[in-house]
């Protein structure tokens, strides 16, 4: 994936979006937590994530400038669903211990992935330097989430981490299920489009040709207009 220029740029831009969304989620946690120390740490964490988003975005932009490419095709490709910030994490109403466990697991997984990416972008020192910098931050993120979890949940903090891992697996399964369901429904609807809609399309096009351009009078509201969906 990293050897392909377009996919590398797309990946960097996608990372930028995920880090940015994640940063905003953690910022939200900082605004909601009643714990002053956690507020400070979440804020640091959020600032890091937002900075990572900038690093990725600037690197993606720099690569694009370095080699002119068909940017329209590049950015019109919709990414797979899911992955808004931290796995569609709900911050409001979530207790700090659960959030910390989740963040710890997510940061650990991200650090693992970034370490691999750092190795495979050997040919691109600037991108490698970004991964280096981010990995240094990830150490802080992993450590503080774990130590703070142990502080606020001295009993059962390990169980929380296991639960967070299970929850991530479940969310991954749900995301996959959505992708599969979406693909199936997309195929069925495409089939319907060509099979069922074709004759109606002829009628609709004929009606459209008869429609005058310009102003169309608006009919006065009928007696049931307040409850009508149409």
């Amino acid at each position, binding site marked *: 994936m990293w050897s392909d220029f377009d996919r590398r740029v797309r990946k960097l831009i996608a990372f930028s979006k995920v880090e940015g969304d994640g940063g905003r989620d953690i910022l939200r946690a900082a605004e909601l937590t009643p714990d*002053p120390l956690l507020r400070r*740490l979440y804020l640091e964490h*959020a600032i890091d994530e937002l900075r990572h988003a900038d690093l990725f975005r600037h690197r*993606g932009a720099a690569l694009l400038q370095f080699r002119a490419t068909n940017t329209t095709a590049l950015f019109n490709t919709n990414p797979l669903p899911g992955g808004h910030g931290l796995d569609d994490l709900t911050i409001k109403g979530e207790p700090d211990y659960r959030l910390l466990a989740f963040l710890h697991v997510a940061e650990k997984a991200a650090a693992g992935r970034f370490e691999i990416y750092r190795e495979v972008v050997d040919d691109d020192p600037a991108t490698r330097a970004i991964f280096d910098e981010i990995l240094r931050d990830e*150490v802080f993120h992993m450590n503080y989430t774990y130590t703070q979890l142990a502080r606020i949940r001295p009993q059962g903090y390990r169980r929380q981490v296991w639960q967070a891992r299970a929850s991530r697996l479940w969310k991954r399964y749900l995301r996959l299920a959505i992708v599969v369901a979406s693909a199936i429904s997309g195929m069925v609807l495409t089939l319907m489009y060509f099979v069922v809609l*074709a004759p109606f*399309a002829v009628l609709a*096009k004929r009606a459209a040709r008869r429609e005058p351009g310009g102003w169309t009078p*608006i009919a006065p509201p009928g007696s049931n207009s307040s409850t009508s969906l149409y």
Partner: protein
Amino acid sequence: MNILGISAYYHDSAAAFVIDGVSVGAVQEERLLRHKNDATFPLGAIEWCLEHAGLELADLDAVVFYERSMRKFDRILTSALRTFPHSWRSFPEAIKNSLGEKVWARGIISSHLGGVPRSKILFTGHHHAHAAAAFLTAPTGRAAILTVDGVGEWSTLTVGHGERRPGGTAGLTLLREIRYPHSLGLLYSTFTAYLGFDVNEDEYKVMGLAAYGRPTLMDEVRKLIRRTTDGAFTLDMDYFEYQTTAARSYSRRFVELFGRPRNPYEPIDLESAEGRRFADCAASVQRVLEDTLVDIARALHQETGLSDLCLAGGVALNGVANARILAESGFERVFVPSAPGDAGCALGAALYADRVYLGNPDREVPDHPFWGPTVDAKELARAAREDDQTVEELDEAVLIERIADRLADGCIVGWMDGAAEFGPRALGHRSILAAPHAAEMRDRLNRDIKYREPFRPFAPVTPIETADRYFDLPPGGARLGRFMSGVFPVRPEWRSRLGAITHVDGSARLQTLERGMAPRLHALLEAYGRRSGMPVLLNTSFNVAGEPIVNRALEGYSTFRRCGMDVLVAGPTLVTKRARQQASPAKEAVA
């Protein structure tokens, strides 16, 4: 009578609450969820509205949704049929989107608001809600109405009129419409996408960029939009793809006509030929939009003979066009609500149901934008003290003088006061304030606070009494400036002393402030005027790029902590940032 208005599912979902004909609260879901342009069902906003009014779901007499979802579905389906077979890519997604949730509006509202009988759930047309948001909140007895946006159900632009009758009732009639796919809003959005900005969000960047260009491509833009003999317009759909795909709004022919689109991740270099071409594109579409709107408004003025115009819809956020409508259409006053976009439809739908469906007597709606949650100064003081910040709680007069001193010293102030604004503009309750004199302040704000493009201007706020001294306001200009809805020239003699708020073309999107609307800010402007000789401040929304405007004190505080703001104020609480007192010691200790 308790009426809840809701807008949702496209962008900017919101809820508004009307009790006995008067709005008591309105808030966009994004402000509560902290997710910009959130389009989900506004449960948080509804919950806040009810709590604010001290009511339960069972107390609701009606819940009004801002559009007719089946009519919208009819447009989506018909559009797919008319563009068959080119719409095959967008069809599955459009159907899934619609059938997955949006068409079942009544059932969804009913299930979310358990306990509200389905008979109490009402619907208005999308543009009727826009029209009501403009007319029923405006201090006028009779007015022509013009609504312009991307698209509602079928309408993209409507004209009509509204009247407050002697018997105390109000009437609102929309006479005719321009129908999808012919849309001024979508024309502008297509250029927004072409220029590498986000559609439904960054249209104001096109307006800002336009001032740097010359309208040299108007003939090309006019190939896209043709006027019809009855005074309306049609778009040549060969240049657009928004009907057939969600991925791109402009076609290959469009690109052949205007050249390569901008890469969204490359900065616009206005010194380069490419950058100037983009600026010229922006200037050209802006001018064509203005010309078209002025023509339609002028014809409406001649037809109705009315002196007031109520303007709404997303396009009404275009302050340059609004100012030209005021100057050239013949209307003496133009009223644009504080939330002319889809969020405002929540309030419009509730008011429309109250006055038109239920026939309740007209009541005057307070003429201010502050319908949102109130800031809690104690919350700020507590959090700031816990973080060892410098916190002072001061008497009103002392506080105002202190902040004026700081502003005169070149500090940037985060200002939170009372209830939040409803709508996209910061109008003095959730603002970042700064001295407006030097262009370096604009650059500093763009670089250290707002993290945004250097070509974007900042807006000024000044007391209504002195506005005319610094700005070249036409008759009716002060009214248009009430909610920052018009762009007007800065008087040439003051431009060098108002460098941070004077755009490259010598204009500014002015807010004219009446004392009664935001007394504390008015007092601050006067205090600042005593120091600088000019009661004018730079006023920009209290947020950073990509985030909604702050709502609670803690959101203001977290924004304050991570950007280059110097002072934060909420109520009587003043927090001053110490030099480089970031939380890094905590980071080092843990790491």
